């Protein structure tokens, strides 16, 4: 990733402010995603899933027909959003859209990887609007989450 527009050393490691996608990015361009493990301690934390034992309790999950506790889908949405911020930068925070469907469960200890491919580019008065197909897979390559995002990139 290119140099950030800041002299603050605390900002090292941040995404490029303007992102990596531009009006010249070709359709078919593949994003490099992020990879995370579904850690039971995070799944069952007060913020994420403590209030619903399907997210952390093997006994309750089995009673509802699940083979193991499942991670809340919003955690996967956050992983996909992290990938999008890496590629769209500031442009993902204004007039962006994220359409997302959870199609399979993410179980405790699964390893989730996010993916994206630029599928469409529409000219706008100030640049272009890019549509990126996004999805997440588990360690077996099975899709757990599918969707698309759109955001504007300046000329």
């Amino acid at each position, binding site marked *: 990733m290119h140099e950030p527009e800041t002299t603050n050393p605390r900002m090292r490691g941040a995404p490029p402010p303007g992102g990596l996608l531009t009006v010249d990015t070709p359709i078919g361009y593949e994003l490099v995603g992020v990879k995370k493990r579904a850690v039971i301690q995070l799944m069952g934390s007060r913020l994420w899933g403590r209030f619903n034992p*399907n997210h952390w309790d093997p006994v309750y999950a089995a009673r509802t027909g699940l*083979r193991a506790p499942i991670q809340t889908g*919003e955690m996967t949405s956050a992983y996909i*959003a992290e990938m999008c*911020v890496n590629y769209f930068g*500031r442009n993902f925070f204004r007039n962006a859209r*994220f359409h*997302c469907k959870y199609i399979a469960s993410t179980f405790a200890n699964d390893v989730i990887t996010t993916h994206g491919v630029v599928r469409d580019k529409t000219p706008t008065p100030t640049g272009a609007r890019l549509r990126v197909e996004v999805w997440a897979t588990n360690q077996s390559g099975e899709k757990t989450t599918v969707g698309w995002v759109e955001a504007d990139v300046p000329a």
Partner: protein
Amino acid sequence: MSENTAMKLTGEPRTDELRPMTEIQVRQAREFVEGLDSASEPYWDMVNVGDELARELHITPELVILYADGVEDFNPWYEAWRMDEWHVPGESPFGYAIVPPMLLSHFVLSVQFDHTKPFSVGSIHTYHDTHILEPVPVGATVRIHVRAIDKFVRRERRYVRHEVTVTDVATGTCYFRETRDILSR
């Protein structure tokens, strides 16, 4: 555990199957789950189309860190609190610390479940269509407004659809709109 080790529980599930626990921790966990379950009703039964709920949320620096740490997103744009400095103005391409783009979507859940007190356990979030309209500064107080707009059955599963808007209490800026579905048990 290797990356290819998917979790598949076999035999009778145990409370301590996925993390080490002593007897007292197991007992506390079982009591907690029983408490949640005993007072809970299905989401489908508790929500009617047209129901509207709203709540204000002060997005404190600590809340943002709690969220970001929970998904291991260490982007410094979200930091208005650091362990070695505590409160700081922060820095991002917008000049100040901002809220991760999907944080509001997660907190919508909490307002949705105001329909059901206590929390309707066993329900699952299945879909969202999110419009991220403006960056949210860390420290803002927002109003999350949720309206149930549809109930439907698909492949013998019961869903409730909601329409969401999030606005800044002080300025009226609309930051976020979303349509989202809950699968009810």
